[in-house]
């Protein structure tokens, strides 16, 4: 029966085509296996998490800069005293289960300082915070006894930020609600000249192989 079928006119050429296309299919399949790892993204390219990121940094500091400049209290203090001498502190991390290394902790207030310095250069005098100043001096003047800074300028206000969060994680997801509070405080009498906040909720849903 099989012999008869194979002897039908055209059957041979048809079979040849099928046979001819099969190796190509398997070659492609085999190549696919090779290509699979090559199509993979790197460990730092793929994935996302529920931490504060650069989008939050930009959005938050743009918002705070605008609100600080628009504050009636701040405008009044500037009108009364002239340029405000402000020292900037890194963010204080009170977030639950969220590490904030020194670099990002400084970036979240440094960008705000940068925006204010750019948009209102006549309203603020920016004073480097003491730790950063001594760190810089010790690096630049290595091996020299630094002593007290001869030309220290005492700031009148401190621009600070405190980040807090409510975070929870289970086998399915990690979610965080962030409250980022910025404050401009008088160093003389501890009165609060200005304060505002940025809030955001983030969630990362775990999937296969997470």
């Amino acid at each position, binding site marked *: 029966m099989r012999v008869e079928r194979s002897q039908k006119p055209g059957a041979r050429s048809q079979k040849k085509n099928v046979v001819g296309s099969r190796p190509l299919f398997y070659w492609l399949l085999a190549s696919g296996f090779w290509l*699979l790892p090559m199509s993979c*993204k790197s*460990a730092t390219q*793929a994935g996302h998490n529920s931490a504060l990121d650069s989008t939050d940094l930009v959005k938050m500091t743009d918002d705070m800069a605008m609100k600080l400049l628009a504050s009636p209290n701040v405008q009044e203090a500037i009108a009364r005293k002239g340029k405000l001498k402000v020292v900037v502190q890194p963010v204080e*991390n009170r977030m639950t289960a969220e590490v904030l*290394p020194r670099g990002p902790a400084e970036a979240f207030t440094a960008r705000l300082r940068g925006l204010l310095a750019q948009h209102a250069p006549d309203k603020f005098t920016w004073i480097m915070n003491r730790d950063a100043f001594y760190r810089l001096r010790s690096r630049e003047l290595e091996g020299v006894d630094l002593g007290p800074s001869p030309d220290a300028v005492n700031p009148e206000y401190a621009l600070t930020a405190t980040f807090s969060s409510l975070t929870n994680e289970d086998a399915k997801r990690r979610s965080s609600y962030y409250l980022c509070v910025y404050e401009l405080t008088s160093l003389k009498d501890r009165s609060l000249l200005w304060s505002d906040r940025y809030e955001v909720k983030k969630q990362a849903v775990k999937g296969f192989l997470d």
Partner: protein
Amino acid sequence: MTADEGQSTRLAAPRRGGLRRAPFICLLATTILVGCGPTKQQRTAGEAVSYYFSGDYPEAQNKLRPLAKETNENFVLNNVRLGSAALADYDLTEAEDAFLRAYEVINSVGVNDGGRSLGAVLVDEKIKIWKGEPFERAMANFDLGLVYYIQHDYNNARAAFENALFKLHDYDDSTDKKKNQDVESNFNVATLMLARTWQKLGREDLAHANFDLVKQRDPSLAQLADYDRNAEANLLLVVEYGYGPQKVTDFDGAIVGFGPKPYEAGRIPNPRVVIDGHAMDLDSFDRPTIDLLAMAQDRKWQSIDTIRTVKSVVGTGLLAAGAIEGVRGVNEYGSSQRRDLTAAAALAGAGLLLKATSQADVRQWEMLPRTIFLLPLKVEPGTHDITVEFPMVRGVRQTWRDMVVPDKGEATYYFRMQRFNPGPFQWPPPAMAQNAPTTSPSPS
């Protein structure tokens, strides 16, 4: 058909068959090759691990540093390895950087989406980016917290210890808080350190709550979790002892588990601390805070484990079917024999392919200890020679000269106990002297 034509057809047939089989062979070879032989990177990492266990931490770091920069599937693994070596070497800057890089990826979701997930399922599980078992993730966060704690960055230390406890929730699929607490209960070391950070941050309420939690979970740690003892201490020794769990597979490499079991490894011995020649009284608080060998027995079962197991079982079935078909083919003649042998070969090939791609991923963080001792001590401020030893275990002893205990605050020192690496070592270690302008962890 002439005799010549017939001969040429017979000769050509195997060649065509060979061509047709070539993709199969290629496919099989590809798959098998992926799982075969260590790569140069794996060999280098293996050398680094050997250097670590022989106490040559700088050389271990030298080997691991370039590997830790490569953002491949071993990125997290090589960074936690580098972090371990740097921490033991007191290169805290490098340890922080390495653990932070690992922390970022461990905390992320979807890092294996797309090609990596498919590759891990179809080709080799090692294609996936290694993030470790929940206890390994918890330990990465604990070590990061410890690095911050040693540097008196208590806010970040607190956050890292909290995150260490979160990572254990992966063991449990439920959002039930009570169940999660059960899971956390065998990681008391993080809760203890969390209590200490709250103490340093002036949150007595939270410090008390966490110390009480430890006492409630493990009454044998009651003295160690004593609020006043921890508040009065000006010297904290963090002593890592023993070797962590090793990944082991079943006979065909598809099902993975951890060994040895705690009863196989024996009882954890108690440490002895000698300061300036005088043995300290540790009788009530020299208890091991965790046993990673016990924790590893709760290995998390993931979907890929099921897929791998099914592939292995189906592969075994196909191999058996292939063998039966082969035996039948051998006993037949002519076209039936050819048909059955071809079918047998196809079944065996598919079976081998499934078996080859069902090999478990046995990558692991080798540097982990079996346990961690936390020893809060109150000693005279000044410099001291400190020895930590395990009298019950020969060769496990380490001495440091001129360790600084401050007038105010607390100094934290990390001891990674290795067999036959006794020192004495001089404080400050070279890595710390190079990185810091001060010679000791300064009090807060």
